[in-house]
């Protein structure tokens, strides 16, 4: 690795955290399941 290439390490680490969080953190009460197609995440729905 040379120059600014070391920057890929924190970028990959943050990406891994985001994906792991999505996979294992579970859904908050405010979310329906994470689809791209509606705005349900803004609700305070209590299924």
């Amino acid at each position, binding site marked *: 690795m040379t120059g600014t290439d070391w920057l890929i390490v924190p970028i990959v680490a943050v990406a891994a955290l985001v994906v792991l969080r999505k996979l294992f953190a579970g859904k908050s009460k405010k979310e329906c399941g994470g689809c*791209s197609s509606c705005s349900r995440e803004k609700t305070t729905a209590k299924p």
Partner: protein
Amino acid sequence: MSGSEKVLVALVGHPNCGKTALFNALTGLRQKVANYPGVTVERVESDLRSDLGHPLRVLDLPGAYSLNPQSEDEKITHDVLLGGMGTDVRPGVLIVVLDATNLRLHLPIALEVRELGYPICVALNMIDLAEAAGMQLNVKALEEALGCRVIPTSATRKDGLVPLVEAAAKLASSEFDASKIQWAPSTREQIILRRKSVEDILRRTVVVPGHPSLFTTRVDRFLLHPFLGPLALLAIVFLVFQAVFTLGAIPTDWIDGVISNFASWTRSQLSSGMLSDLLVDGIISGVGAVLVFLPQILILFASLLILEDSGYMARAAFLMDRIMGRVGLSGRSVLPLVSGFACAIPAIIGSRSIQSPAQRLATILITPVTTCSARLPVYTLLIAAFIPNTVVAGLFGLQGFVLTLLYILGAVSAFVFAGLLKAFNLTGAGGYFLLELPTYRLPSMRTVLRGLLDRARAFIVRAGTLILSIMVLLWAMSTFPRPPEGATQPSINYSLAGKLGNIVAPLLEPIGFNWKISVAMIPGFAAREVLVSALGTVYAVESENSEDTSALTEKLKADWSLPTALSLLAWYVFAPQCLATFAVMQREIRSLRWTLLSFTVLLVVAWLAAFITYQVAGRFL
């Protein structure tokens, strides 16, 4: 004052009387509204808008025709008002929402709720439509008849909100103990008595014009005609998908150009190295590949929103009822299935409005086959790459025609699956289907634009968070480990992704998928559209020429045969590539057996469909 200390004001009424529109107006939220019954299937609560000046919480409930629940969504309303399983907080005030244009149908629930003893006031909603239809409503007389405040409102125009909130706040300050509420299912005599009261109230309070508007009747004569109606439905579906391609092409090309230029510019600004590769090959190529489909997704959503808000969607359900009956379902299943064109998740949740548990289960099980919008990027990418953009019969584009065929294939497959479930005695007879057909109205520009803005934002946020993160990881997997000294093959072949792809490849070789598709398919199980991003990243990393910023369609055209592309399309009609859908399915049906069975069957059917397509296309094309 904390949220829990505020008095809860619940909105109660029939389906499609405008409760959710009123809820949105009172709270500033943007819950989904549409012009057909059964849109809201769960309780949603939020604080009253602060500028309305009272510390109240507002609770939106699913519509109910009576307090005696016939479906899962009506049960939620029943449990909240009468204290059932899982309800902890009871409302202190009820606002009964009535459709002013159809009081004969809506008044009985007001009388039934009044008998409970809750402090109530009435929102006489859609008053603007009633007045436009020439109806004269005597609000004072209605107040006397119902024994409570009646406030004319128009939720879409935000008229009457202040007096409504004032009335609710006044009721909230009175002493009331919800735990003393008693209820028993209405007897036949009580129902007849209520009907008589309704007729009596109508005589005293409502003057209907001698010649009511015949617009809806006239239009329905054509749109609900036994022969012309289904033809009109087909024509509407066909036009929507033609629009997706023809109207979507210009902004899509424009966004594609911007992303390409941005990739070239980024590459030119950075010295060549891994950071440059990550930004260009991983992030810009991957996220850009899915972002270019935003215009087409928005055109599809705009069409659905316009059809929903105009009142046509309920007609579509009516037209489909007879066909659905043949496979053990009813028109009631059509509404959630149609919303599955946007996303399977709200469609599965929306099936709560189906009364029969067996029909509800069958509807949920076939929902993943309806063509959700996440498939659209995959379909349009492959169609744009492999189907010539020619005009057929001088009328319609071949690409739009193929897209329509894919949607029809999804719908027909759902129909066949439902038939199989019926054959195994799962769904039983179709049963009766009662649906209130709403009056046609011009779609509200505000509703449509808000819906589009929300969905565009959700799509971009998702592309910028989850998809971006997956692409960064996929880039890392496609880049490391680095090729050994003196390596002769492309570097991706030595990477972790390359090795994984080669492990999965034997399973997918018979259906024509190369190892690069196999690699892209793995993150594609998180969500369908991720496949497009993943292909963008894999092909960008694989390209040894860093100056190659040609569109993904060109790269696929050069690398795949037509049978491979058709096979992937067939795979995507059935493949269960959205884990969130199955998580919600499990939550709704609470049966791991059915959820796993559904996932497995769809996976096997996807493989078989792709295999047959690849083999047949390989012989004849």
